[in-house]
C-alpha cells in the first residue's frame, strides 16, 4: 500500500519539526555540559588541582643515622649495625591472618608474637609499615624476597639498629635506646615528627637519653608520589637528613671492663676519676645487664629476672646510689673543724671507746677505745670519738659547708639519667624535711658519716679527687663532641688551707701505709705509686651484731676512697660494696686493684702488691680470666 503524497508531506513536516526540537534540546544539553566543564576546569581548577596534589604527594621522613659513641681511646661503645627485617603494610596485605600464616612458614614466629603483631596492626593506621620481624638472617631475608608475590603487603628491608658491642660493661653509663612510648611523647612539648615513626628508637636512660637530641640528628625528608592504594610510585625529591653528633666519652673501656669484672657479682659501685682534669675513667655499677636486650625489646622473663633480683642490676649505683659514707666522711669533719679554727692537727683527744652527750652514749667502733689520738691517728685508726669531739666544737653548719665544698650534697653535672644530690644535712634542712629541731646527737652521727649524711660513689670520688688535687675539680664524662673537646671545669684551688689539706692527706697515707692503718693490707708497694685512702663501714641497722650472723641485706656497706700516687696524685677511686662488710676487708682491695689497673694502663706486675697479698691477687686474676673466657664464649655464640 502506497502512502498518499499528502500523508507523506504531513509526515515529513512533522518529523522535521520534531527533529529540530530534539536537535535543539540535545544541543542545549551539550552546551550545558560545556558550561559545567568550564566551571569545573576553569573557575574551580585551582581548588581541584590542590585536591589532586593532596591525593598524590606524600611526605615521608628519612630517619637520620644516630650519632656514635666512643671511649677515650676511640673504641666504639655504641654503634649502628645493619639489620634485616620484614615489614608489612596491613592495608596492602588483604587477609592479614592468612598472609601472616604464610610468612610464618619462612620466619619462625611464636603464637604469642603473631598474636601481638595482629593486635598492634589493628590498632595502628593500616597504611603504616609495621615491622613483623627483625634481625633476620640473610637467608631468611632472601627467602622472603623470593616469595613476595605470595606475601602481599610484605616487604624485606634493610635498616639500622643500635648495637652495644661492650655488652653489659657500659649499660649504666650510656643506657640504651628503645621504641618511643606514649609516655615519652607525653613528656615532650613539641615532639620531632621522627618520634612518631613506628620503630623509631630514642635514648631511654644514660648518655643515650641525656644527649638524645644531638645524637638523634635531623630527619631528612622525601616527597613521594603515591597511587590510590598508597603504593610509592616514584620519589620526587629527597633532602638528606643530618646524622647525629658523635660523642667521645672520657671513659676508658679497658679499665671499665676491668672494674665491672672486678666488682663481679657483688652489688657494688666503683669510680675512677682523673684528678687533674676530672675525667671519669670508669663508672662501675654491678651487677649489670646487656643493653642490647632492651634495644631488641626485652622479653617478659628477662625483664622479671632483672627487676626481681635483690642486687638491682638496673640501678645505676655509681651516680644514683646513696649510701651513708661512714668513716670516709671523716676528712670532711676534720677539715671543717680545722678550717673553723677549733682544732689543730696536733691537738689530741682521749677515746675511752665512747662519748657521753646529753645522757646518750655514742660508741667508738673500738669498744676498748683508742686512748689519746690526734688527727693523724684518728684517720689511721678511724677513731670515732675524735670526730665526736670535733663535731661538738665545729657544729653541723661548718661540716655541711665543708661537705658541699668537697662535692657531697651537690648534684654533679654528668649526663646520666639520675644523678643523686646526696645529703649534707644542716639544721634548716632537718627543719624542712622532718619539721624537727636539730639535736647535738645528729651532729655526732653526721661527723662519722652516719645519720642523715648520704653520698653517692660519684660524690665520694669527687671528694677524693678534690682532697688529692686541692682544686675544685668537676667530673667530666663527655670528652669531645664531634671532635671538639669539652672544657675542663674546676681547676681553681679549693678554698681550704693547703696545710690542713696536706695534714688530711698525710692521715690518708697512713691509713693505707702505716703499720696500724686500717687498709694496710691493700697498700701499693710499687715505687712512686703509693696510694692514700680511707676505709668506711656504714651501718645499715643500729644494733651492733656480727656481720656473719645477719642476712645479707642487713649487713654493713663497705666503702673506700683513695687517690694515688701520693706524691703526685693522678687518679682518685671510690668503691662502695653494698652489704659487703668492712671497708678495709672488702672495698679497699677492689680500690687498690682498680687503681693499679689505672696507673699501669693495664694489668700491673705482681711487684706492685705487698708480698702478703700476692697469692690472693693471683686467685682473683684467675677468676677474672675464667669469667672473661665465659663471656667471650657467650658473645661468640650470639
Amino acid at each position, binding site marked *: 500500500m502506497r502512502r498518499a503524497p499528502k500523508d507523506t508531506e504531513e509526515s515529513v513536516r*512533522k518529523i522535521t519539526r520534531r527533529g529540530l526540537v530534539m536537535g535543539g534540546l540535545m544541543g542545549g544539553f551539550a552546551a550545558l555540559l560545556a558550561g559545567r566543564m568550564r566551571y569545573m576546569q576553569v573557575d574551580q581548577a585551582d581548588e581541584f*588541582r590542590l585536591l589532586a596534589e593532596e591525593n598524590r604527594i606524600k611526605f615521608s621522613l628519612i630517619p637520620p643515622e644516630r650519632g656514635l659513641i666512643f671511649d677515650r681511646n676511640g673504641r666504639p661503645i655504641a654503634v649502628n649495625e645493619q639489620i634485616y627485617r620484614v615489614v608489612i603494610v596491613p592495608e596492602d596485605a588483604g587477609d592479614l591472618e592468612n598472609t601472616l600464616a604464610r610468612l610464618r612458614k619462612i620466619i619462625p614466629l611464636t603464637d604469642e608474637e603473631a598474636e601481638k603483631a595482629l593486635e598492634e596492626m589493628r590498632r595502628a593506621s593500616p597504611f603504616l609499615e609495621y615491622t613483623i620481624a627483625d634481625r633476620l638472617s640473610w637467608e631468611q631475608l632472601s627467602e622472603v624476597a623470593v616469595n613476595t608475590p605470595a606475601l602481599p603487603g610484605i616487604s624485606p628491608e634493610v635498616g639500622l639498629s643500635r648495637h652495644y658491642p661492650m655488652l653489659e660493661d657500659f649499660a649504666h653509663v650510656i643506657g640504651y635506646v628503645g621504641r618511643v612510648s606514649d609516655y615519652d611523647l607525653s613528656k615532650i612539648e613539641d615532639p620531632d615528627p621522627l618520634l612518631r615513626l613506628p620503630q623509631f628508637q630514642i635514648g631511654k636512660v644514660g648518655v643515650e637519653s641525656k644527649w638524645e637530641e644531638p645524637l638523634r640528628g635531623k630527619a631528612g625528608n622525601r616527597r613521594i608520589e603515591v597511587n590510590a592504594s598508597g603504593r610509592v610510585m616514584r620519589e620526587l625529591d629527597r633532602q638528606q637528613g643530618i646524622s647525629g653528633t658523635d660523642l667521645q666519652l672520657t671513659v676508658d673501656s679497658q679499665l671499665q671492663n676491668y672494674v665491672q669484672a672486678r666488682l663481679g657479682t657483688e652489688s657494688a659501685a666503683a669510680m675512677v676519676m682523673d684528678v687533674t682534669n676530672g675525667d671519669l675513667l670508669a663508672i662501675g655499677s654491678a651487677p649489670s645487664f646487656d643493653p642490647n636486650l632492651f634495644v631488641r625489646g626485652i622479653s617478659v622473663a628477662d625483664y622479671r629476672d632483672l627487676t626481681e633480683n635483690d642486687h638491682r642490676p638496673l640501678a645505676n649505683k655509681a651516680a644514683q646510689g646513696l649510701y651513708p659514707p661512714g668513716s670516709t666522711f671523716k676528712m670532711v669533719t676534720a677539715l671543717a673543724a680545722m678550717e673553723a679554727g677549733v682544732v689543730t692537727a696536733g691537738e689530741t683527744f682521749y677515746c675511752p671507746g665512747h662519748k657521753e652527750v646529753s645522757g646518750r652514749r655514742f660508741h667508738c667502733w673500738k669498744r676498748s677505745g683508742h686512748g689519746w689520738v690526734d688527727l693523724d691517728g684518728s684517720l689511721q685508726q678511724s677513731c670515732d670519738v675524735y670526730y665526736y669531739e670535733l663535731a661538738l666544737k665545729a657544729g653541723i653548719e661548718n661540716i655541711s659547708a665543708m661537705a658541699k665544698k668537697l662535692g657531697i650534697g651537690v648534684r654533679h653535672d654528668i649526663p646520666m639519667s639520675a644523678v643523686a644530690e646526696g645529703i649534707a644535712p644542716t639544721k634548716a634542712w632537718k627543719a624542712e624535711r622532718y619539721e624537727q629541731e636539730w639535736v647535738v646527737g645528729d651532729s655526732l652521727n653526721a661527723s662519722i658519716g652516719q645519720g642523715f649524711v648520704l653520698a653517692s660513689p660519684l660524690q665520694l670520688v669527687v671528694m677524693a679527687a678534690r682532697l688529692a688535687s686541692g682544686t675544685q675539680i668537676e667530673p667530666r664524662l663527655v670528652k669531645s663532641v664531634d671532635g671538639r673537646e669539652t672544657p675542663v671545669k674546676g681547676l681553681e684551688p679549693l678554698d681550704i688551707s693547703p696545710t690542713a689539706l696536706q695534714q688530711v692527706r698525710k692521715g690518708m697515707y697512713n691509713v693505707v701505709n702505716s703499720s696500724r692503718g686500717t687498709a694496710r693490707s691493700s697498700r701499693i708497694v710499687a715505687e712512686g705509686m703509693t696510694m692514700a685512702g680511707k676505709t668506711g663501714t656504714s651501718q645499715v641497722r643500729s644494733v651492733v651484731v656480727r656481720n656473719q650472723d645477719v642476712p645479707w641485706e642487713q649487713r654493713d656497706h663497705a666503702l673506700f676512697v683513695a687517690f694515688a700516687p701520693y706524691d703526685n696524685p693522678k687518679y682518685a677511686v671510690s668503691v662502695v660494696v653494698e652489704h659487703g662488710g668492712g671497708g678495709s676487708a672488702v672495698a679497699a682491695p677492689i680500690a687498690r686493684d682498680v687503681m693499679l689497673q689505672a696507673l699501669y694502663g693495664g694489668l700491673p706486675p705482681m711487684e706492685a702488691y705487698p708480698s702478703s697479698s700476692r697469692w690472693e691477687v693471683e686467685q682473683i686474676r684467675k677468676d677474672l680470666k675464667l669469667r672473661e673466657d665465659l663471656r667471650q664464649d657467650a658473645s661468640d655464640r650470639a
Partner: protein
Amino acid sequence: MSYLEYNRETVPTGLSKVLYVNWALVVLLLAVCSVGFLMLFSVAGGSLSPWAEPQMKRFALGLVMMFIVAMVPIYFWRNMALLAYLGSLLLLVFVELFGDVGMGAQRWIDLGFMRLQPSEVAKITLVMLLAAYYDWLDVGKTSRPLWVILPVIIILVPTALVLKQPDLGTALLLVVGGAMVMFCAGVHWLYFGAVIASGAGLVTAVVASRGTTWQLLKDYQYRRIDTFLDPESDPLGAGYHITQSKIALGSGGWTGRGLMEGTQSRLNFLPEKHTDFIFTTLAEEFGFVGGVSLLVLYVLILAFCIVSALKNRDRFSSLLILGIAGTFFLFFAVNMSMVMGLAPVVGVPLPLVSYGGSAMIVLLGAFGLVQSAHIHRPRGRR
C-alpha cells in the same frame, strides 16, 4: 504493507553508492575513535596493550561492518526490523540464563573473540522496530491511545529484561531512546507529559520501596543514589568514584597536564579509567580545550545525522537516523554528566572512546544503518 518509495532508477547502485556515502560523518567517527585510541594508549602508560590495540582491531572490524551495512538497501533493514528486535530479545533471555557474570550483573555472552553485550544490540533493534512501526502506521493514527500502547510495549519488554540483569543505566537509555523515536514520530505532547509525571511517581515508589520486601532496586543501586545526592557521605566507598573523578577533571584546567601526565588516572585514583571514566582522563590531560573538542565532535556527528534525517523524505529512514542519533546522544550525555557529577554513576560508556567491544561494534553498525538510509534516500529524477 506500505513500502517506501524506493525507486531503483533514482537510487545509486553498485559501486557508485560509495560516492553517496556521507563521508563527513565517516571522518567525524574516525576522529572520535582516534581520540579513544589515544586515551587508551595514555591510560595504559604509553602502551598499545592492553587496551588500545584490541580497540583498534575492533574498530577495523566495526568499520568494515559499517560499510557492509551501509551498502545494503535500507528497505531490507526495515523488513528485518521485527526479526532483529525478536532476535535481540532472544539474546537477552539467553544472557539471563547462560550469560557471564561480571561486576555483579549478568551482561555478556562470550563469543570467544569478543564478549557480546545483548543490551547494546537491543538499543539499536528497538529503534529499528519503532521506526518501522511508525513507517507502517498511518500518520493520522500516531497519537491514538491504542497505537501508542503498542510501541510502549515494544520498549518495555527489552527494558524489563535489561533491568533484570540488572543494568539500570542501559534500561534508562532504552526507555529514553525509544521515547525519542516516539517523540519524533509525532506522538502527542501530552503522552510525554503523562510519562514524565508517572516517571516521577515511579521514582517516588522506588525510593519508598527501599528496605521493604518488595524493594524495586538492588541495595547497591540505592547506595549509588545516596552517593549521587551526597558524595561526601561515603568518601572512600561509592562516593570515591565521583569525588576522584571530579578532582581529576577539575584539575585539568584550561589545557590540561599533557598526554600521559594525568596524575590522578595514572596513579589509579580514578576507577575504571579505561572504560566509563575515560572522559575524566581526557579532561585531566587535555583540559577544557580537549574536553570541549570531543564534545564538539559529538555534536557535529549529531548535527550531520539530524540534517541527513531532515533531508530524507522516507519516514523509516528519518526516524531510524533520529533514533540512532538520539541513542548516541544519550550515551555521551549520560556518561559526561556522570563523570562531572551531574548524574548518578550508572555504567554507561563514552561512545566510541571507552574501551569495550560490543558498544563500539554495535554503534558502528548503527552508523552503517544511518549511512544506508543516507545512500538509499528517495531522490527525485535527475
